């Protein structure tokens, strides 16, 4: 017994190393699924409020860019207004339209923490469950798709960015209408994504890739433009390289997409599986 104690004290560094290393790896493996990690992450009170203050300061530095992007978005939306179309008829009558019901609403939130250079990137935003944000909602910005909500606390939420090795979204080519799945490429490039299509699809260089409307997002929100037709050879599927339209390093404001019929759709699709 005494010899054992002497042995342990003599090589105490190694035994301490074992203890701490195993506990660190346990934390890493246990919380690797991320959603469970609420305590040691950027949405807890201390880190969340620190990030909030720093982003408040940084917000001033990029006011001009934000203004520009808002103005651009306003112009685009103004173009979609009824008043900006030339009415090709002389008759005027009011129609009470009951065909359209609001399906998607948008919550605006500010980005308070963001990364683009990890192999799994997350974005922290300053709205949480109290503002009506829930897990698995889609997130977009003026320029295109950003990601989906991975975890929420009362005042903050974490977005699993499009730049995440496990992010996958349903996307389609805007002219061809063929649907595929959109993932981030393997080379950690924050400006490139990969779209996997069936082999009979006919993508064209420069064609827009947009959301398909099958999940989280309304149809037609851009991912980016096709930049390379044969990004990865040899697979079963046609892999197309897409230049992302969102500059993730400059994200300031994002919109969380609230789909009013999401639960209904999910419930129905769960039935289908059985």
């Amino acid at each position, binding site marked *: 017994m005494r010899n054992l104690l002497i042995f342990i004290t003599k090589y*105490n*560094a*190694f035994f*301490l*190393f074992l*203890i*701490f*290393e195993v*506990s*660190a*790896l*346990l*934390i*890493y*493996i*246990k*919380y690797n699924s*991320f959603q469970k*990690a609420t*305590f*040691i*992450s*950027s949405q*807890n009170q*201390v*880190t969340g409020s*620190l*990030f909030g203050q*720093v982003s408040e300061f940084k917000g001033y530095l990029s006011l001009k860019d934000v203004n520009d992007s808002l103005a651009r978005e306003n112009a685009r939306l103004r173009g979609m207004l009824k008043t900006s179309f030339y009415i090709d008829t002389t008759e005027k009558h009011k129609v009470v339209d009951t065909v359209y019901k609001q399906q998607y609403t948008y919550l605006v939130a500010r980005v308070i*923490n963001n*990364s683009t*250079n*990890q*192999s*799994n990137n*997350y974005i922290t935003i300053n709205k949480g469950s109290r503002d009506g944000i829930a897990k698995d909602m889609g997130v977009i910005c003026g320029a295109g798709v950003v990601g989906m909500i991975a975890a929420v606390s009362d005042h903050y939420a*974490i977005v699993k960015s499009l730049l995440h090795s496990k992010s996958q979204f349903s996307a389609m080519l805007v002219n061809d209408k063929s649907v595929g799945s959109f993932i981030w490429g*393997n*080379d*950690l*490039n*924050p400006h490139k994504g990969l779209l996997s299509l069936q082999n009979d699809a006919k993508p064209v260089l420069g064609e827009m890739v947009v959301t398909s409307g099958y999940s989280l997002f309304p149809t037609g929100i851009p991912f980016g433009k096709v930049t390379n037709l044969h990004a990865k050879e040899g697979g079963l599927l046609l892999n197309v390289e897409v230049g992302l339209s969102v500059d993730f*390093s400059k994200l300031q404001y994002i919109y969380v997409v609230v789909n009013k019929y999401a639960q209904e759709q999910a419930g129905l699709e769960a039935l289908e599986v059985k």
Partner: protein
Amino acid sequence: MGRTIIVNIIRFLLLVFMQAFLLKNITFYNLSTPYFYILFILLLPFETPNVLLFILSFLLGLTVDAFYDTPGLHAAACVVLALVRILFINITVQKEGFDNEPEPTLSIMGFRWFFTYAVILTFAHHFFLLSLEVFKFSEIQYTLSRVVLSSIFTVFLILVSGLLFFKRKERK
């Protein structure tokens, strides 16, 4: 003694703050990312007991993890770093010399020793951190180039900080 503790607490806060809000946003072509916060473990005094050294490394790792949203990853890498530090100091420094050489800084230990110390420790930490993060053998080439380039960046920052706080009087 009291002064050492205060200096180290300030150093801890400053380095974590710098890592979380400044260096996290810096990267060259997604290959070279500095993890400068390990300077805290590098500069702990020689007399730090092993238990304390491991506890501090673990805490430092967890704090950085909280800002990086990767619970356990940096903690594991920092614990490896602490072990490498103990081994390296055991091999290269005589135990009797501790009284007049309290901290392994650039100004006290000289350039050659400190440079080797920083390079070996940084490389061990980065290698463990980045390979654990990717966790794939198929991308080993890419990971290795990230490790080497990031190590160069971190060592550069460590040397610059060493020169910045260089105290001529302490040099033998």
